[in-house]
């Protein structure tokens, strides 16, 4: 059991930093419309920076599943897996508004 616990601790500890970079890298692609680190440039989009992670995850899932109407996000969201959405939502949630 001790070995297993140790393995579990390592598995969560090491990818934490990697996950951060993964979230950062995924979120960077969104910046062309949503602004650097999700800080919106115009009033036409809601700033993603500082929104709750759960809210962002739900919106992206709803776009992807066609539950929330959109001009473009329904097409973009289909390019992302659940773990990817999780990582980028965590990144945006952690950014200052």
């Amino acid at each position, binding site marked *: 059991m001790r070995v297993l616990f140790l393995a579990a601790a390592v598995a969560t500890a090491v990818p934490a930093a990697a996950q951060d970079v993964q979230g950062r890298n995924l979120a960077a*692609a969104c*910046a062309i419309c*949503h602004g650097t680190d999700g800080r919106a440039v115009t009033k036409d989009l809601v700033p993603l920076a500082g929104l709750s992670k759960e809210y962002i995850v739900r919106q992206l899932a709803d776009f992807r599943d066609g539950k929330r109407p959109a001009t473009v996000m329904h097409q973009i969201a289909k390019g992302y897996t659940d773990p990817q959405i999780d990582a980028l939502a965590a990144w945006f949630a952690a950014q200052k508004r």
Partner: protein
Amino acid sequence: MKRRDFLKLAAASAGASSLAGVTGCATTLPAKARVVVIGGGFGGATAAKYIRLWDPSVDVVLVERESSFTSCPISNLVLGGFSSMQEITTGYEGLRRHGVQVVRDEAIAVDAAKRTVRLARGGDIAYERLVVSPGIDFNFGEVQGFEAAMNSGRVLHAWKAGAQTVELRRQLEQMPDGGVYILSIPLAPYRCPPGPYERASMVAAYFRQAKPRSKVLVLDANPDVTSKAGLFKAAWKDLYPGILEYRGNAKAVGVDAASMSVKLEVEDVKGDVLNVVPPHRAGDIALNTGLITSNNRWCDIDWRTMESKKVPGIHVLGDATLSAPGMPKSASMANNHGKIAAAAIVEQLRGRAPVPLQIINTCYSFVSQKEAIRVSSVHQWDAGQGTLVAIKGSGGVSAARSEAEGTYAWNWARTIWADSLA
């Protein structure tokens, strides 16, 4: 370049070369790793900014020959009279605030073995990694007579936003009602696939408003509209009947400024304003550095890092690259290329393996003053194919042209300018 920038830089390179003389190559770099970026467009500016964001310990020098950035996206609205040069121009103060040293000069040569960049005004800058984001230059020779006609000011490409944008707008304003504006489009691949069709739409919108007896004649070397074809054609049919005429398979092989005509393979077509876009290739510094690998035109790169497949230590961005499958030569892509390179360089400088990025393309085109259409795609590294590929099932085009897309187009423009430069 400001005098004090030049002095700082001259001091830096003098210090570097004298050190090199004493102790050898390894000490030619400052204590901090230095990345030099050539070209302050969407690709280079973004790379410079994001390297500083993601690792402020890296010294970043951006070499750019212009004093400010002029955006090709939205420049077609300037031609239509719906935007201004001021609106599409952004300074480099934003990058300076991120700690990027912006040097106004032209990079004229790269010594990849010594890892130095030579500047037109004299002096070399040493780098640990180099980013080359040169945009495009033209293969003028493929359109006979073009270069002379352009130099005389009679025929323009206006395919780099700037002085030619201003001049083309002036020519359109001076053209009498009843005149013909000819837009000649080269074979794909070229910078901004939907750009020519947006330009035709903007000029047609201007004519409909100000010179309704005038015509826009599109001579496309491609067999059909290369991007968002259904949406463009629907807009032209609804908005510009009798004004905009489109001809496919109409490749310009020459221009004659004396008779103001475009020479196609089988006939000559006369116009009053000739806007001929010649075929292009990676910009001159890529050519001079030996970075071009494909058809004497484009630079093949590793899409995990944007690093040249030919010259190690040099990352090539933007329109100059040999495009990955389904990837347009667009501002969105150049900006995201900058982020791929930034992420890779930050890892490489720490001796770590770079992780591939997933990136998004979104291109808006205006079809009238207020309405726009869009195409989007998501691109992911595919280890099997060894390139970035568009993810199946993602992306697509607008359901229809709309003012909502027009609003989002302006949001995209203002945001990508800020994301790249502020």
